[in-house]
């Protein structure tokens, strides 16, 4: 094995320490960052995530309130609830936990969150900002994956990057973020004729598909960085376990750097959510000051 294993937990810990410092400064200015998490209906599915976010928020100095609404809550009621949260100056970020009941379309809710409180980076305005290379609040997983790559000793300008998977919240935003950093990006997906041909040409490969074992060592250029965003539950003779989209053992033989699953992108994603909470709070503070509290005019 030659790849260096990227320690997502330690990157996340560094980020949280930074966030805690910033959160302290904001709190001193009267703007202690606060997140509200919304789950609707079957809350068990997301409970683990919510608890984890709560824990990370605590250690990052961000206040976290988890709200559960009954499965019968209508779209109109949710609209009212979100409008209330949008207007509430004590709330700086809104997280919409998935899954949602069938009668609540997730995109409709995401569009209702005020762009300045969109800590998940899912509002069309947030995505559009990423496309236009104006990074305010980005989708957490995509931002996390790119932040991890940026910790490696590589020049992003002119870097050949292959992104496998073109989902709206991960693959595509990664492509635009990397393009903004000057990389030459190729996006592959299920219709791509030879993913291996593209991945083998890449200095860095991002994979976000949801298929265990999709990327194998022979698909990589020796020394390349592999950022594995997949999270898959598989059964093994030793019991269930969580793996990524890469065949870790064969990839680790060829890659220069590799993220493990778990312990790679996952923890950095939650840390990015906290960082977004601080960014959002700061933007709201500045907006408030511009609108109501300018003393220089």
């Amino acid at each position, binding site marked *: 094995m030659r790849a260096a294993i990227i320690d997502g937990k330690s990157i996340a810990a560094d980020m949280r320490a930074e966030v805690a410092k910033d959160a302290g400064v904001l709190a001193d200015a009267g703007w202690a960052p606060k997140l509200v998490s919304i789950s609707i209906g079957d809350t068990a599915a997301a409970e683990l995530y919510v608890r984890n976010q709560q824990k990370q928020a605590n250690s990052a100095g961000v206040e976290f309130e988890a709200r559960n609404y009954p499965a019968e809550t209508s779209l109109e009621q949710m609209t009212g609830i979100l409008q209330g949260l949008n207007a509430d100056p004590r709330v700086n970020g809104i997280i919409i936990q998935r899954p949602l009941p069938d009668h609540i379309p997730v995109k409709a809710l995401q569009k209702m969150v005020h762009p300045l409180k969109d800590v998940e980076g899912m*509002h*069309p305005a947030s*995505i*559009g900002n990423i496309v236009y290379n104006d990074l305010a609040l980005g989708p957490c997983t995509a931002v996390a994956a790119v932040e991890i790559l940026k910790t490696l000793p590589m020049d992003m300008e002119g870097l050949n990057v292959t992104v496998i998977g073109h989902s*709206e919240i991960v693959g*595509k935003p990664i492509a635009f973020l990397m*393009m903004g950093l*000057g*990389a030459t990006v190729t*996006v592959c997906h299920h219709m791509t004729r030879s993913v291996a041909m593209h991945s083998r040409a890449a200095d860095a490969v991002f994979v976000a598909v949801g298929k265990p074992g999709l990327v194998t060592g022979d698909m990589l250029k020796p020394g390349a960085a592999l950022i594995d965003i997949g999270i898959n539950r598989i059964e093994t003779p030793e019991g269930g376990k969580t793996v990524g989209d890469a065949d870790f053992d064969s990839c680790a033989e060829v890659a220069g750097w590799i993220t493990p699953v778990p312990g790679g992108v996952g923890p950095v994603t939650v840390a990015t959510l906290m960082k977004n909470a601080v960014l959002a709070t700061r933007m709201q503070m500045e907006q408030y000051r511009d609108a109501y509290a300018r003393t220089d005019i």
Partner: protein
Amino acid sequence: MTATVIDGKAFAAKVRGQVAEHVARLKEEHGITPGLAVVLVGEDPASQVYVRSKGKMTVECGMNSYEHKLPIDVSQEELYALLAKLNADPAVHGILCQFPVPAHLSETDIVAQIDPAKDVDGLHVINAGLLASGQKTLVSCTPLGCLMLLRDHLGSLSGKSAVIVGRSNLVGKPVAQLLLQDSCTVTIAHSRTKDLADVVRGADIVVAAVGRPEMVTGDWIKPGATVIDVGINRIDAPEKGLKEDGSVKTRLVGDCDYASCAEVAGAITPVPGGVGPMTIACLLANTVTACCRANGLAEPEGLTV
């Protein structure tokens, strides 16, 4: 091998014909006439030509054209007030501000003032975000034109390798989004790309949107590939002689060296007469789309993605 010439002029005329049919149907069945408002600041001669031909084609398709000419020193407040008025006007379904604008105004801020539902240029950040997240949006005109030409020529684009040279918000990025949506494997190259010729050589579809005259040459092109040349560059053409004022005559060329690319490609768009005419046709198509949406009617078939 000599490439098939993709006749954008003829195809654009066909699209305008479809637009006119939709407009006639909207009038007859619903009593609605789509309206496009064009705002021009200053007296730049090239912009005046564009605005005039947009207005003319809008009317030819049976739509209402509203031209607003503002003086070069118009204040930001006055311009924004006009845009707000147009946003609120139910007879106006599409709004576009002709760029470039004088330096005291910001193009990004102007676009942000336009209601995304009337942003027929497809430049509003919300529209870019909707496109990126696979939702209903208005797609900027030149990229939409490129997509229509490719679909018309190739049928399904699924699984094809596309290389887009250029990553501008106006052309490169939206073209990339559209081709991804049509299941191409997409590479976006730009000025920082290493070994650009090699990258382009892998492509079944090449879209050049660079702004560098004749940069892409035939030896960059995979035999049989489809080449869409978005570039419009004016270069000196001493072979045409001198103009009346004694300066050298000029001609328009694309970002691709047409002669050498046409030797290798399967199909290619000429400049002029390729992508260029599609831009206005798609502007008209977007206006009809915006009008249908504003009135809660079905999407106009063949005019949207």
